[in-house]
């Protein structure tokens, strides 16, 4: 047995666990599509450098043990320590209000477990759910077939939510490898503003596979920022698909900070549907041992006068492996597009690798598109300069790497998040430097 058989065999019992059935037909056809598509293999161009066999050859429990022993104190250690932030905590696939802090008002916030059971929210599913997620992707179909956990958040017109909401997906007390299909749906209506931080944490030594799908809708003049803080354990796999659709004059940012997890695959799709749209994608990856982090991005410039910026930095230690594939599509009518893409990498050990591939398909003639990727080592002269001033080799290295990664953090406006990332960077680089005091 392996994952594929698990998926086949568990579906009917999964459907029986649900108290509602209005998605059942969609789930069944999604499962059928999934089986037609199958898991991507290395023969698949999009998975040429990322082998999923390690994930798919394992067996997983699809019905996580509900019982957990996570305390409020453990949550306090995970969140960014800001009293005015909100956090939503899912444990073992269920929303736990007693561990969460939800104080935002004037918004519609629902957990899927709940919304799926309540016919009055059916319109959400009809109007938004699965409308921009790419149906041709096996993982998206698999997610629909099995999704039960996640949240739906609608920020109504002109509502500005200043405090970020941190969403946690925790898994604990599982004796077996566990499979989660999580789903997020964010709607930022006209003139609204919202910021989400998302993180996944596996507390067990058994493996967790998370197949996450996120859909973000940003309407006219709205601003939606989504920060993925990926610092999970060595026994965690994450396959993430995030789709963002933007209307005119809107701004959407997706930042991906990848430090942990055994295999992490991020897929990011931006779809433009109006003029004067700004899209930002930033990433910092620092991994070691035998970790793999793969970033696939795609920006679909379908309308004129829009801008997209991608800035991904990677630092790879030991035998870790990085993949970056950034696609920019500029439609014939998307004149005056400004698309910028940059991927810079530092390999710290001989065993570390990065496969980086920018891909631009431009059909308009009056556009500004730039891309670049670099792979290098640390500059020895810079290292000597710092050491000659009394800074130890390890710290000098860390300082230079921090300087290297720093500009991918520039458009984070949440100070505690910056601080957290600085701390994780120091931790990952094994130094006791308080970067925030130096930079």
């Amino acid at each position, binding site marked *: 047995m392996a994952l594929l058989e698990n998926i086949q065999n568990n579906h009917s019992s999964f459907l029986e666990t649900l108290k509602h059935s209005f998605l059942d037909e969609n789930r069944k056809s999604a499962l059928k599509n999934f089986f037609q598509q199958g898991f991507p293999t290395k023969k698949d161009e999009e998975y040429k450098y990322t082998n999923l066999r390690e994930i798919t050859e394992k067996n997983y429990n699809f019905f996580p043990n509900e019982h957990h022993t996570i305390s409020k104190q453990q949550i306090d250690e995970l969140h960014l320590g800001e009293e005015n932030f909100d956090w939503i905590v899912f444990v073992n696939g269920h929303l736990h209000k007693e561990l969460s802090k939800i104080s935002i008002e004037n918004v519609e916030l629902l957990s899927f477990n709940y919304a799926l059971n309540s016919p009055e929210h059916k319109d959400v599913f009809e109007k938004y759910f699965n409308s921009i997620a790419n149906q041709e992707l096996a993982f998206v179909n698999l997610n629909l077939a099995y999704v039960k956990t996640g949240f739906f958040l609608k920020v109504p017109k002109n509502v500005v939510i200043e405090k970020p909401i941190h969403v946690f997906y925790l898994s604990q007390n599982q004796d077996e490898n566990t499979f989660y299909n999580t789903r997020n749906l964010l709607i930022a209506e006209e003139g609204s503003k919202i910021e989400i931080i998302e993180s996944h944490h596996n507390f067990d030594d058994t493996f967790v596979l998370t197949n996450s799908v996120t859909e973000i809708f940003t309407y006219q003049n709205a601003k939606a920022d989504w920060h993925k803080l990926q610092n999970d354990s060595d026994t965690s796999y994450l396959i993430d698909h995030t789709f963002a659709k933007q209307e005119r004059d809107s701004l959407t940012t997706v930042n991906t900070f990848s430090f942990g997890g055994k295999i992490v695959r991020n897929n990011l799709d931006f779809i433009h549907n109006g003029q004067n749209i700004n899209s930002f994608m930033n990433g910092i990856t620092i991994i070691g041992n035998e970790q793999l982090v793969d970033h696939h991005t795609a920006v679909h410039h379908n309308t004129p006068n829009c801008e997209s910026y991608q800035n991904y930095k990677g630092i790879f230690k030991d035998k870790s492996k990085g993949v970056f594939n950034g696609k920019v599509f500029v439609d014939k009518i998307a004149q005056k597009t400004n698309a910028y893409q940059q991927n810079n990498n530092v390999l710290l050990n001989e065993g570390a690798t990065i496969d980086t591939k920018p891909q631009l398909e431009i059909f308009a003639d009056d556009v500004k598109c730039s891309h670049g990727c670099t792979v290098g080592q640390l500059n020895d002269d810079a290292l*000597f300069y710092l*050491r000659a001033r009394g800074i130890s*080799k390890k710290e000098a290295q860390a300082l230079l790497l*921090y*300087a290297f990664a720093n500009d991918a953090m520039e458009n984070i406006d949440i100070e505690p998040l910056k601080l957290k990332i600085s701390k994780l960077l120091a931790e990952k680089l094994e130094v006791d430097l308080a970067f925030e005091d*130096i930079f």
Partner: protein
Amino acid sequence: MLTINNLHAEIENGVEILKGINLRINPGEVHAIMGPNGAGKSTLSSVIAGKEDYVVTDGEIIFEGEDIVEDAPEERAHKGIFMSFQYPVEIPGVSVTNFIKAAMNETRKANGQEDMPAKEMLGLIRENSEKLGIKKDFLSRSLNEGFSGGEKKRNEIFQMLMLNPKLAILDETDSGLDIDALRIVADGVNSFKNEGNAVLLITHYQRLLDYIQPDFVHVLADGKIIKTGDKTLALELEEKGYDWLLN
């Protein structure tokens, strides 16, 4: 303070650059090393500071009674050796102030001292930056990024004043400076100088020595010190060039 005996060093591909250097610097002295291009002047300063691109194949470098040949660059810095770089490296994102704070506190930590209190640090920064005519906004700029040649050198001398080393090696600090900047840098070095420390100037031209008076002038050619004299030797070199010594 510093005694170099029969120092031989080569670059990684095995080419010997230093071919038996002997040099003795006592506290309170200013030494100048001059010489033609490719003589090994910058190599000598890099080898004293511990640059790992060079391999010491023979000889010793005794600093305050200890052989430092095996020491890492940072250990040498902690012992009180400072080198002003000919080409300081740009480090985006790290401000001059934060960099010098980190450097000073690392050195203090290595010497078993607590971090310098913020107020004391700020006072020192103010005092030394004023000495060199460095403006406040300069200190919050990214280290060496987009600095002019003169700003980079001034910044190096600023760091020297802050770190207050026992031995300051100034590698071509005069290159790229106009006459006003040269005077300011020289004033900075002169204010640093006292009976307890020493300065080693590496220079191509005599003009820096108009402002910083050396006690000894050495001529380095083809990896060896071929002549040592007092400051009048520099004037003689200015007039005659190096050829009369080489032949």
